[in-house]
């Protein structure tokens, strides 16, 4: 079971001109096994939603609630959220010089599971997860995200999704900057995750392109810090045809 429930979430960031409200009452429920797409123009607050749920210190939650299977996510530290089953695939994964992918993955897996993975199966699992993302086993010896191409960074994020096996994955513009081959590889990785029992996915994207490979159960149009309209996959088709103008005009 995995239900992520976001209720009337308001989030501000501190700027030089004082606090600025970015999210203005977001309500969204991802039920067991569902994939939701959030689409919206740049600056609409999509990434803020992703980072706020993950607990980035830059964002201040001013009101509202986020729960995962009834547990209060906002009360948890960043790493507690991950251990509770949340995963954020980042748009701009961060370089950690001198820390190998292999060490990073093993440390994360140990933290998530509360015990070290069994060495023998773990190496196989890592090589398997990397291989499915078209990443060579030597990739594990490189420093985390250092010198990775844009595509390698995104594929590495999805390899982590596979290995860490969260309950709910938030994918923040995982499709941006990918060529079509990489997009397919990444989408297949996400779809393999979705096939597992009861996994939730919140897919944040600017473009409809990825929705040809990952079929969402629901689509939400995000404008000016909240959900402007929700619907089925047909909403994405409308966006593909007409863009965001209708929603922006309504603001």
């Amino acid at each position: 079971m995995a239900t992520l429930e976001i209720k009337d979430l308001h989030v501000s960031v501190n700027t030089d001109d004082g606090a600025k409200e970015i999210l203005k009452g977001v309500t969204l429920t991802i039920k067991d096994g569902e994939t939701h797409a959030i689409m919206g123009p740049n600056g609409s607050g999509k990434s803020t939603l992703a980072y706020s749920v993950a607990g980035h210190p830059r964002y201040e939650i001013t009101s509202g609630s986020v729960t995962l299977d009834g547990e209060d996510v906002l009360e948890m530290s960043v790493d507690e959220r991950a251990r509770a089953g949340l995963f954020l695939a980042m748009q701009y994964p961060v370089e950690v010089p001198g820390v190998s992918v292999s060490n990073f993955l093993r440390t994360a897996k140990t933290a998530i599971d509360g015990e070290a993975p069994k060495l023998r199966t773990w190496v196989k699992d890592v090589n398997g997860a990397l291989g499915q993302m078209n990443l060579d086993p030597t990739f594990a010896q490189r420093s985390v995200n250092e010198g990775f191409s844009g595509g390698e960074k995104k594929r590495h994020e999805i390899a982590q999704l596979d290995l860490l096996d969260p309950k709910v994955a938030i994918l923040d513009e995982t499709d941006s900057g990918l060529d079509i081959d990489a997009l397919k590889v990444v989408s297949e990785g996400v779809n393999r995750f979705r096939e597992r029992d009861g996994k939730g996915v919140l897919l944040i994207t600017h473009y409809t392109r990825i929705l040809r490979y990952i079929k969402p159960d629901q689509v939400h149009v995000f404008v000016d810090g909240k959900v402007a309209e929700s619907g089925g996959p047909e909403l994405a088709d409308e966006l593909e045809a007409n863009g965001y103008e209708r929603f922006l005009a309504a603001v």
Partner: protein
Amino acid sequence: MTVIDTSRDSVASALETDRVESHLNPPASYDLADHPVPTGREEVWRFTPLSRLRGLLDGAASAAELNRETTLPDGVTLTSITAAEAVELGELAPNERPAALAAELSGGALLLDVPAEAVVEEPVVIRLTGASIDDLVWGRTLFRIGAHAKVTIVLVHTGSARYSAIQSFLVGDGAQVNVLSLQDWADDAVHLGRDSILVGRDATVKHTAISFGGDLVRMHANVEYAGPGGSAELLGLYFADEGQHLEHRLFADHNAPKTKSNVIYKGALQGKGAHTVWIGNVLIRKVAEGIETYEENRNLVLTDGCQADSVPNLEIETGEIEGAGHASATARFDDEQLFYLRSRGISEKEAQRLVVHGFFNDLIRKVDVPSIEKELLATVEAELAKNVTADA
């Protein structure tokens, strides 16, 4: 960047074959009168808390010694020589009072001899252990590495003492030498070390200083060249805890053409009053055409209340150089790195440990002393555990 232009317009200086004195380093001399007791205002002493040197500037005679355990591979010898013999063998004279006192008061010297063309597979290991902070110890050692020899020399300092040592590394033509000096003293120890290296023609020298323990550690690593084509890599790693003063002073004296120096020092600081100093001096003399030099110092400040001083200095007297550059950066933990790691379930302390480990990792790999790498990594791990993961 500090560039001190000392070019003079006389033809004579362009033809310089003898020494010009560096503006950054006092002249070398055995005469104690040339090295008065510092006041703390001198350029070379202004970062050092003199009150914590505890007699090392006064120069009382002392018969105390550090306990010495040595591993000497076949062909390598360690013998006692007289002070006069040390000078005759070409010891690099002291350019500072503690080193001059060590030369004056040590009552002779040790000579480590590696014969020419010897390829020594196992490292020479010298473990020096202090018995008590009451001991004032003066040390004087020459390391003579013959032409085309290849050797790794490891010095490990532990225990407690007030110790000043003058060490000279005379590296023959074409030799390959890897020196590692580990300072892992007890909390109260004071260590003033001077390592000067004379790099032979086409010789390659790596010198690494690793400082973890001790109340005050102040190390010099000086390089000069006996001929063209020599190459020196000066590496350093330090981790200052609460109240510790760890100071590393480098001087690459490019006194011959086509020589190279590459300096990389990295440090971490944690705890109230942790203070590190890094001074990277490079002098490129008029004769030193076609040289390459690069120096880099990076500090990672882990808590409030620490101070990292980092001063690169470049004196250039010739325009004909291949490359000269430096970088110095002192930074706190990167919040984005920590967020990324924590978003994968890794606790804050563990994430910090990973980042610090990563920060030092490439340097540890460069040290390249396989036989003690394990011990070194364990020491690093222990230091990291003591500091960063204390509350994990």
